[in-house]
């Protein structure tokens, strides 16, 4: 009986150490290596540009469309609640603040993780499974510098741009629904928004958030791809893990950063 319990505890401990602690340590070392080897991804910037195309430009459609719809839904829901308190003009404030502070970075980050992060993981994992990475090493090309770092930086660069586009599209969607469809006064929609949204407190903090999410998602994506077992199941598992881990990381980091940034005055 006792030996069974001990066995269970040992298995649990091994799981935690092997799956989490070991991988976290390897992940940190991997991030350090990526940063150290990022020279070529800037010196030969076309490598990074290619990846920005795949990670950023191809995510544009989903980001823009989701931003528009999220903004329109915020417009409808916000109007429904605000009109009860006779302050429908504050719709612009509600839409813009919730987008710029929270929804823009977070939803864009989640979409980016599932659209681009999973693709990066699958690509690197497949390159590993088909021994392209080993072939590069044989040719004295560092796969971290040639494959991993450009993808990492592409994600870091794309993410703030995508989040800004998402927020802008959302504000436009809220404007369409609030002003054009429902008929909130246009002047007070914009002026209340401009009075309530602060550049340093709201816009810059939102950009900082999206930058941090970009680093987190790109790091998780390239690491999961590089660490994937070189089999079909391994790559598929790594892709799933990228989406799950990045989503959790985004939400957890968002809580921490919100607590630090908006504690109230």
């Amino acid at each position, binding site marked *: 009986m006792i030996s069974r319990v001990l066995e269970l505890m040992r298995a649990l401990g091994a799981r935690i150490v092997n799956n989490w602690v070991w991988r976290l340590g390897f992940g940190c070392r991997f991030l350090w290596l990526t940063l150290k080897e990022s020279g070529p991804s800037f010196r030969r910037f*076309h490598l990074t*540009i290619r990846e920005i*195309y795949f990670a950023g430009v191809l995510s544009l459609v989903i980001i823009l469309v989701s931003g528009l719809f999220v903004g329109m839904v915020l417009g409808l829901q916000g109007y429904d609640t605000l009109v009860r308190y006779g302050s429908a003009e504050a719709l612009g404030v509600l839409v813009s603040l919730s987008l710029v502070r929270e929804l823009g970075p977070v939803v864009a980050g989640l979409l980016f993780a599932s659209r681009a992060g999973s693709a990066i993981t699958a690509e690197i994992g497949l390159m590993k499974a088909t021994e392209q990475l080993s072939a590069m090493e044989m040719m004295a090309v560092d796969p971290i510098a040639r494959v991993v770092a450009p993808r990492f930086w592409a994600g870091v660069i794309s993410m703030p741009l995508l989040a800004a586009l998402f927020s*802008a599209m959302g504000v436009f969607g809220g404007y369409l629904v609030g002003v054009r469809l429902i008929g909130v006064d246009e002047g007070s929609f*914009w002026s209340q928004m401009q*009075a309530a949204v602060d*550049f340093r407190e709201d816009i810059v903090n939102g*950009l900082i958030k999206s930058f941090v999410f970009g680093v987190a998602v790109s790091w998780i994506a390239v690491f999961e791809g590089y660490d994937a077992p070189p089999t079909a199941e391994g790559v598929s598992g790594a892709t799933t893990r990228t989406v799950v881990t990045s989503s959790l990381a985004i939400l957890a980091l968002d809580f921490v950063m919100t607590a630090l940034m908006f504690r109230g*005055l």
Partner: protein
Amino acid sequence: MMTRKELDLWVGIFAVAGIGAMLFLSLKVANLASFTSADTYQINAKFENIGGLKIRAPVKSAGVVVGRVGDIRFDNESFEAVVSMNIDSRFQFPKDSSAKILTSGLLGEQYIGITAGGDSVNMKGGDTLKLTQSAVVLENLIGQFLYNKAAEGDGKK
């Protein structure tokens, strides 16, 4: 496969759109262009009670925003709140102007209203407003109302 030129073009469009969105957010949503934080001078005012006034609350005169609240401290000698306001240097006020803490709407945010006085000398940076009126605290107001009602009731007897 795309040529490098096409790739560059698309990424360029993406970057321009992204930066454009950032500019839109900063200029149109946050209205960064309208307040120039560079040219301001600071004046202080002491209040018995600031209510819910917050840093960066607007300072208005005749309803027009002329500055922002820069800092709120507690003066441990007079036991009053000291509010520093950064006033746009385009706007000058006479030395005997007064400051009130007002509320926009019934339950809106609180701001400082400056009423210009009649002195011929204008205020300089670092000056302190002498005439101030504290925020209206709802509990005090209700307390006063009840007290008056009670006094009325006593008079009728």
